[in-house]
């Protein structure tokens, strides 16, 4: 049998009849104790040695304690002096007793605090009394200290040791003593003969540069053993999903929009031909701001055109809403309820100047809803918003674009349910088959923007648009059941660490 050098030496130093400590083995084998220990563990793992461990504790006196062994514990010296001065009958001036005890410096404080703690008497208003019933000869700490000084610490009481430890009079240390005996297999191996093989563990820089690596044998590792768990840096799972959607959209020719999260209701709602008394604009559903309250400036001519569209509609046969419209409401600030406010800013030319068709734009940005938080609804969520601006767009173009988009996520057979939105006509809710469950689920909302929206914004071609929540796509794709585990400060780091990466 071939074994590494150290293991051969340890095996030969061990005995089948007698437990031998590693220290003894190391001495006999002429190895460093840590080398002998590692070899013993390895031999134990191979079944050639049996390794046993026991723990012993040692107690050592500190320098302070050695002085007390000599002079007696300060509190006991104080008690003796107090009794001497008659304090066991009547309280005596403290200064007098301390002087008589010959205690000095820090030791006085130590004496006083332990005197009271251990019940040798009381101190009050500069006077000291001694308890006549106290017995300094039976002091557990003094007894333990003496026993330790004589090397009989094992007999000291546990509580006394603890008190001494607290007073900093002793230092306790624990030592693990490992011993080995040869197993039957070990004896057999020795009888059959073992040879030393040159093996190495860690590959060192020295080994590589010296060329030594060519002469050694590499020790086998247990390659099936568990490795340590590391926490790598990684992108947030929802962010990864957003990146994937962005990749798809950029690939389809869409350009990304960004813009204000806090915006005037004009951009969020009025430009979208949402009547001011629409239920979604009432004070409960809107995420209105308290501070600051309103925007400073809106483009005056655009405001005029938008208001006219609300009141009178557009075109020769158009009609407006029978709803109030006022500028103060339009100027009021809110956290945007949808990112369509960005679309309005872009279409109007406010964001990046007048746009010439054809254009495709998208954003994956946060929208806000004033509601309560639950497992499927957040107060803030990522809205995927996309639109195409071109001449003569039809419902078929809209269907083709969205069919293409959803196919990228494994959702086929998209169905279009006629729907109503104040700012699109025709409008469709999009339904698709869940890739795993086969269930028909809502996957978005879409439509062609109404003339009442486009005309005031100065757009004279068609624009089709759609939107959906990124979280919805995420929950579909990952099976996550509580969106709060993912998004927000209640996030479970373990969930993020274990979530499969998007690809």
């Amino acid at each position: 049998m071939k074994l590494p050098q150290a293991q051969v030496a340890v095996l030969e130093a061990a005995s089948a009849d007698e437990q031998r400590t590693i220290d003894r083995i190391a001495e006999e084998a002429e190895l460093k104790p840590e080398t002998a220990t590692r070899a013993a563990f390895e031999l134990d793992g191979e079944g050639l040695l049996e390794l046993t461990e026991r723990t012993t504790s040692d107690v050592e006196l500190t320098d302070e304690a050695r002085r007390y062994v000599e002079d007696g514990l300060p509190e006991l010296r104080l008690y003796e002096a107090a009794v001497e001065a008659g304090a066991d009958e009547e309280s005596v001036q403290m200064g007098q007793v301390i002087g008589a005890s010959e205690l000095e410096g820090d030791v006085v404080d130590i004496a006083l605090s332990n005197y009271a703690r251990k019940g040798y008497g009381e101190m009050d208003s500069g006077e000291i009394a001694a308890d006549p019933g106290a017995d300094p000869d039976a002091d557990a700490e003094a007894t333990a200290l003496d026993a330790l000084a004589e090397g009989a610490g094992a007999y000291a009481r546990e509580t006394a040791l603890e008190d001494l430890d607290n007073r900093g009079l002793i230092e306790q240390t624990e030592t693990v003593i490992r011993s080995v005996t040869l197993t039957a297999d070990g004896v057999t191996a020795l009888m059959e003969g073992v040879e030393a093989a040159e093996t190495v563990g860690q590959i060192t820089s020295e080994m590589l540069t010296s060329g030594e690596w060519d002469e050694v044998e590499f020790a086998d590792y247990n390659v099936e053993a568990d490795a340590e768990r590391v926490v790598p840096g990684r992108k947030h799972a929802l962010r990864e999903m957003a990146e994937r959607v962005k990749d798809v959209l950029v690939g389809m020719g869409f350009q990304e929009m960004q813009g204000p999260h806090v915006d005037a209701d004009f951009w969020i709602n009025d430009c979208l031909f949402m009547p001011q008394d629409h239920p979604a604009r009432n004070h409960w559903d809107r995420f209105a701001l308290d501070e600051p309250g309103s925007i400073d400036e809106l483009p005056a001519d655009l405001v005029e055109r938008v208001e006219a569209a609300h009141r009178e509609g557009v075109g020769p046969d158009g009609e407006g809403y029978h709803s109030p419209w006022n500028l103060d409401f339009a100027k009021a600030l809110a956290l945007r309820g949808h990112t369509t406010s960005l679309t309005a800013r872009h279409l109007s030319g406010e964001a990046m100047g007048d746009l010439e068709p054809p254009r495709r734009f998208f954003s994956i940005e946060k929208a806000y809803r004033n509601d309560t938080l639950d497992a499927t609804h957040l107060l803030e969520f990522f809205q995927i918003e996309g639109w195409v601006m071109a001449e003569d767009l039809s419902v078929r173009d809209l269907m083709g674009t969205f069919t293409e988009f959803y196919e990228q996520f494994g959702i086929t057979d998209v169905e279009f349910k006629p729907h109503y939105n104040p700012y699109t006509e025709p409008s469709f809710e999009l339904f698709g088959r869940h890739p795993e469950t086969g269930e028909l689920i809502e996957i978005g909302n879409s439509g062609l923007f109404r003339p009442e929206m486009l005309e005031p914004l100065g757009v004279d071609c068609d624009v089709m648009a759609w939107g959906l929540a990124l979280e919805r796509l995420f929950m579909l794709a990952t099976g996550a059941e509580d969106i709060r585990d993912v998004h927000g400060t209640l996030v479970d780091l373990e969930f993020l660490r274990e979530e499969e990466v998007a690809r």
Partner: protein
Amino acid sequence: MPTVEIDPDELRYLTGREDRDDEQLKRDLFGLGLEFEGETDDGEFELEFAPDRLDRLSVEGVARSLRYHYGDDRGVYLPGTNSAEWTVRVEDVPEDRPYVTGAVVRGLDMDDAALESLIQVQEKLHATMGRQRAKGAIGVHDLTMLKGETLREDDDRQKSVTYTGADADEETMVPLEGDQELTLREVLDVHHIGQEYAELVADYASMPAIYDEIGLFSFPPVVNGRRTEVTADSRDLFIEMTGTDQWTVDKMLNIVCYALDARGGKVEEVRVEYTEDAPVTPEAGSELLRPDLVTKMKTVEHGDVETMLGVELDERDVVDLIERSGMDAESTETDDGAAAYRVKVPPYRTDVLHPVDLIDDVGRAYGFNELEPRYPDVSTVGGRHERSRLEDAVRDRLVGQGFEDLLNFHLIDETQNYERLNLAPPDAGSDDRADGANRVQGGDVLGGGEAVTIEQPYSEEFTMVRSWALPSIMMVLENNTHRGYPQDLAEVGFAAHVDESANTNVAERRTVAAALCHAGASYEDVKAALRALVDAFDKHLETPATEHPTFVSGRTASVVVDGEAVGVVGEVHPAVIVEHDIELPVAAFEFDLDALR
């Protein structure tokens, strides 16, 4: 989205299609845009509806739409009306609610199902077009319980009721679901329906009230009187609607009249007489005949239909599709000679504002899902927004440096944002920061900006937009102390504070924040991470000492990138760590993303 409850048996009865089973009905309804949501305990369909076709808020209206959908009906249907016997005189009504309309319906084929449907259509109209009764409120009464005042000596069939303002403390009624005579004030104070709608009339100078010869029988928009309550035995009804807009109440009335017509009722006109005492409105001093069951005309161009649907159609097909949508159409030409249609729209339609709405109807009748999707032949160049690319590049670097990327809420509360980070919340609108000698730079430290606050938050935990991201990271650390360490977390995200120099008065910032939390996490470690990040963007980092209340004094530096102070780096103060129940040191930095541009 609102739902409407429809009894499938009623639907089969009213459409005359007794053979359609439930599943077929569900598909038919989906085609109309009414999605099946579930069943009620009594086996009715709960349907989700989009609030455009308010005429479909009743089983009668849905049945009418289905009959068109099946092709069993075509073209515009107008209920016949008898001429008016009843008049509503409008006198000194509250200025906030000047409009009224009304109708009489006689000879109804009423039963429990019909009554239930009538109650539902009222509720749903209140919830939608009526804006919770603020804009329009409906009162339906048993006509036989009304005693009109005789209008003319020579014709005892001409009777009237009066809509006027009433004194809340003087006038009394026995409200529906009540058994004692109450003043209107008491109705608002103690009656459960009164309490629910009291807010609507809280600011009115007088209470809206409708009287007949016997007394007050309706207190719109709050509650009707018990005397005229409608039951399954009622045959003749008097309907009144009051509101803030004549068009709105008239349209609501049309929808109710169509539903009652489908139940065999005969609609009879009511005269609405705005007297000289009525508030000054466009209708003051005039007399209207209601319901206003007149059609309106819109012109739709043939080319627009083809463009929007993306298919070629015969003129005859278009006319057919329009008729199958419950409208009439005749071919015509526009002024510049394009083929077009004159379309007659029935009076229950409240959603037709523009010809595109009619093209939508044509598409629905054609069947949108019959259309073949095509990818638009339009070429554009895609690309990412510059800032979004930068955000991603920074995130990638942080992840490469071993940080776990976070995505936190932008909303937070004041305590989390300021106080728990040892920051004093800045006084709104106050520039006087000279009070406390220990207040370092006052509200000028990172995160100390004035809060952008929510007006009516639902939750105490989300009352403002965070002014920096570090509080969110500290909350994540706090919520994950049971998870494995190290927890080295980072976020590239959004923060905002009040800034009067901006048009929206809000400065919106993209911020880069990171925290190391593990045994031994120190200033050196976090500065090393910061430096690696800043170096990667070819920028020059300096870290002159500064003070920030969140961090340990003497271990805090200003983040200066290319000579500009953009953030803070340091060891988080033990008081802040302990406040978040964290038992390991935290070292962190946060700075403006734009510094890395």
